[in-house]
């Protein structure tokens, strides 16, 4: 166990815990955007910056990905931290002034209007969609294209993806609603020849039946809603969770859905 001090409160956590988790244990809330329970930390949005008191000078690090160290002293609401966070939110607000999640964040910090030219974009490039597609679904239909000021999320060469399974996880994790699930991706499956018809839930490994009772007309499918109701998360995370942790329960769970 490692002991550290967050905002002067002592806490003991396991080695390899992130500062974000350690703070959670103390009930200290640190705002995040690119962080997701089901994904490895990424540290891109910088909203979760905290200050670590150092011998010579203090450092600013991302709480979501920085690991705890023995005797570490961390400040999560210092003046320096709050100023940096405000800057991040101001950047976000200038980039996506119409996104509710961003506006709420800005309201919370008392930022009314950004001091920069506004852009009116949807995507904040947090990378959640890219990571869920690559790391959880294991598909890699979308990725980051270009770098620096031209960075964007796209399919390779901006062409309709051949590999997308239409799971919709990208849309589910998107904090700004920049990705909307159109059933176009799924329609592709319907256009295949009869015996090659595919169901996205079978591709995700969530259902095992061979023939769809809705004749592969996904918009009539109720599975999605039922899974979400019972899991309170996207099925893709459920699939991973269940696969790794409770294989047996998974099968009984599937049976329940199929019944």
């Amino acid at each position: 166990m490692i002991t550290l001090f967050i905002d002067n409160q002592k806490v003991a956590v396991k080695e390899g815990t992130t500062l974000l988790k350690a703070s959670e244990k103390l009930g200290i809330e640190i705002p995040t955007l690119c962080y997701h329970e089901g994904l490895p930390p990424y540290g891109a949005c910088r909203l979760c910056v905290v200050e670590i008191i150092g011998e010579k000078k203090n450092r600013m690090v991302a709480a979501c990905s920085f690991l705890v160290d023995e005797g570490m002293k961390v400040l999560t609401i210092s003046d320096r931290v709050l100023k940096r966070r405000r800057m991040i939110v101001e950047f976000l607000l200038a980039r996506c002034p119409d996104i509710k999640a961003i506006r709420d964040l800005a309201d919370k910090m008392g930022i009314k209007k950004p001091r920069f030219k506004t852009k009116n974009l949807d995507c904040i490039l947090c990378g959640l969609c890219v990571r869920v597609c690559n790391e959880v679904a294991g598909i890699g239909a979308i990725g980051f294209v270009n770098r620096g000021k031209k960075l964007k999320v796209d399919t390779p060469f901006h062409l309709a993806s051949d590999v997308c399974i239409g799971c919709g996880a990208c849309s589910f994790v998107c904090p700004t609603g920049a990705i909307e699930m159109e059933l176009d991706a799924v329609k592709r499956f319907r256009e295949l020849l009869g015996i090659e018809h595919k169901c996205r839930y079978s591709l995700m490994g969530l259902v095992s039946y061979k023939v769809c009772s809705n004749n592969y007309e996904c918009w009539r499918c109720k599975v999605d809603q039922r899974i979400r109701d019972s899991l309170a998360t996207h099925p893709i995370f459920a699939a991973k969770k269940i696969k790794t942790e409770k294989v047996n329960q998974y099968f009984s769970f599937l049976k329940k859905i199929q019944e």
Partner: protein
Amino acid sequence: MKIQSITDLKQAIEIQIQKRKSTEKPILTISAGTCGRARGSLRVIKALKNAIKKQKLENDIKIKVTGCHGFCEAEPNIIIHPHNIFYQKVEPKNAKDILAQTVLGNKIIDQLLYSDPSTKERYIQENDIPFYKHQKRIILGDNALIDPTDINDYLSIGGYLSLVKVLSSMTQEEIIEAVKQSGLRGRGGAGFHTGKKWEFARKAKGDTKYIICNADEGDPGAYMDRSLLEGNPHRVLEGMIIGAYAIGAEEGYIYVRDEYPLAVEHVSLAISQAKKLGLLGKNILGTGINFQIHINKGAGAFVCGEETALIASIEGRKGEPRQRPPFPAMKGLWGKPTNINNVETWANIPVIIEKGADWFSKIGTNGSKGTKIFSLVGKINNTGLVEVPIGITLREIIYNLGGGIPGGKKFKSVQTGGPSGGCIPDKLLDLPVDYERLAEAGSIMGSGGMIVTDENTCMVDLAKYFLNFLRDESCGKCLSCREGIQRMWEIVADITKGHATMEQLYVLEELALKVKDASMCGLGQTASNPVLSTLRYFRDEYKAHVIEKWCPALVCKRLVPSPCQDACPVGIDVPSYIAMIAWGKFNEAVDLIREDNPFPAICGRVCNHPCELNCKMGEFDKPVAIHSLKRFCADYVLKREGYNVPSIQSKRKERVAIIGSGPAGLTAAYNLARLGYRTTVFEALPVAGGMLSVGIPAYRLPKEIVKAEIDAILALGVEIKTNAAIGKDLSLNDLKKKGYKAIFIATGAYKSLKLGLPGEDVLKGIIDCVTFLKDVNLGNQKKPGDKIAILGDDHISVDAARVCKRLGSSEVNIIYRRSKEEMPLDYSEIDQAIDEGVKVHYLTIPNKILSKEGKVAGLQCIHARVGKADSRSRRELIPLEGSEFTIDADTIIRATGQVPDLTFLNRKFEISNWNLLVVDPYTLQTNVSGVFAGGDVVTGPATVIEAIAAGKKAAASIDNYISGKKFEGYKRPKPRMQIEPIQLTKEEEELKRPKMPLLSRNKRLQSFEEVELGYTEKMAIREAKRCRRCDIEE
């Protein structure tokens, strides 16, 4: 052939060393790195080989093709052994001569030798050249000795001996201890201690470990890693093998960008040669050590120089950094402990092993040991790579090695450390270069790029350039870096366009500080440095952009449509009148000039032409001869119908008095008359024109020209009263009583300052320069003496010298305290004076006046050298002991500055400590209401064009005062019109600036005839076509 044991390798090396020593035939060493090749070294090699073949000397003369020697300015260069003769900028056509004259005939070809740009001294051997002499080339020096494609050549300079030493006598701990003791710090930028880094990697848990050589050199203007990999790849490999053995790695990677094809080629070749020899691979030299090196070619992303991004890139992922810790030493490539060092760091290892940690740690400063390679680029005479001991001052690097700033321009700043570094201003030139000091100054060592800028570089524009680079090169992963740099760029771009407000400037500074903090990797954390350091040292320049909407360096296009117009104190629309001359419309051109300046013919002769100093053409060729063109069209019109009388706005009844008929007074009169005022000029001397008539000698400015231009002003109804000294016959109050609504004082500065030498008041034979010139100009053409010594710091000293020569004095000396570069005048004038027989003594301090029977007999002087800069950045003079000498002289002319004679003014006026009249800088009004002043009486001795500018400003201000308008602030000049550019033929695009035709020397010394004869019509039109019309480009 594989070498099986350590002793065998040692033997092989010794054989090669002996072989090198015993070679007696001449060797021609030719540099052919990427830069050399770009300047045609391959063609030179081909030509040389052909020449040797023709003479059938293939077996007697050897050609060795090496990598870059560092002196890019002199590429392609050849060193001819055994005498080490250094030839620079060799062309294929020189090959035959080099072979016949130097190699076979032992004769030196003078034109090919390096000559110092300032002293013009020629150097024969490479090591004598200041650029090389002040370096300490323990790493880069070998580049000049070896053929990088031949491993035996590397062995012959004792290469791989360090490997022998390590494998035969050192344990892994001892190696790491040695590197730690040496104090070597990472040369990639951050400067972490290499020994400590190795220790971490060695102690990290795990069987598989990797080492990486970071050759992803992406800084604009830095290329030392490329030069090392191209010119001496085995040295880097040797360092890596030693490192791998010490750390316990069996595999290594060289991550090099694909933009370095020659480096990739040479390293690949070196690896295969080392493998063949058994220095890489399994069971190296029978010691049981295995080590492989792979080359990984990067696609050229700046961020991949960051170690975690580099690792991601080798693994095949997108080059994005991740949060550290864990550091690569714990969890690096493929999750295994990994040690990453820069190319230069690896290249340092063999030296440390060979010469010992003690030897190495004696070089450098307390915290930073060894040497560092810098790439010296930008506005510097000797562009190239320099290797210097850490702790050397910037001044030494820039002036001793770099040879100073080209074109006699002023140094402004040096940008160190590439886009992540900062700008260091001239006041910190004596800063010792090491990791800590640079950081304190707001910059970083970085990989060692040094971009020198001169006065024509806009610091805001420079910051914009780096931000633009970074916003492209940021990986975009972390928001603060991606958005922060973009937003900072937007603000800086706004500033350069003149759209920004002061609030935005504060936001910029705030962003810069926060982005530094909140970003994940080194790129974002240092991205603000260009902004922060320029804001720290050049805030006034930012403010000028924001408040005055003005770019002092005349770079930002939106603010400064054409630099020549903006550099001109009166803001003449230069591009338009040059274009008119090109079209052949000389009358219109003169009218356009006279909108702003009533003296085109005078300024065409005597102006110091700041316009030409800032001409864009001057950056790659000689600037357009703006002042000669102005003179041509004015002369053309004067010779024919004369100037047009400009239109007068509605007549007014108010009267204005102007005291002094110099350029300031007459310009004010001209402009006021055009506004309709009735203007009277009072002049104390019998002629009008002030210094134009009585100061400047006729051989520079003929009297009839002055008269013609003054007459053109009189044509507007201006009245001039000569022999009317104010104070004697009339007082200022009398003028007011007589109904003059406003008075403009422009009486100039005629009183000479004393030298401060004992005896100057009592001895005969000491005269004032101004009085002397005035007497000569008014007709008293008697020679002042035979042997003249002129003590001066101004152009009038040169004038006096040339006048003395014309009056028949045999020996004329000018004694100048400072160097030629610091003289505030056009060099062509000094050159003409020297041509006429005047002697100029630079950096000379007069000590004592020698006398004989109450008369001057000579002057004792002492030479001096320039010391460190004082706080006003003017460098102090240190007399050189024992360098005293005497100049024979019967007359001493003092030209050491003048002050105005203000005795005619009453006590109400505010006068400064320097005995100058104090005025409001914007309105030129003195503390007495209705009395204005301008020109030399306010500024001290200055140029004609500055006096004209003061006159123009005063006229506008007096008009405001009389009409009761409020002062609205000074407006920057804007183009008055847009002239269609002329279509140039192919031949006309290649035109060169014509030389000004001069009177022959003999004729010159006999009379006061004008020396510069002026352009002909054909010359003028062709010269006007050289203008590149930067005023209409966007």
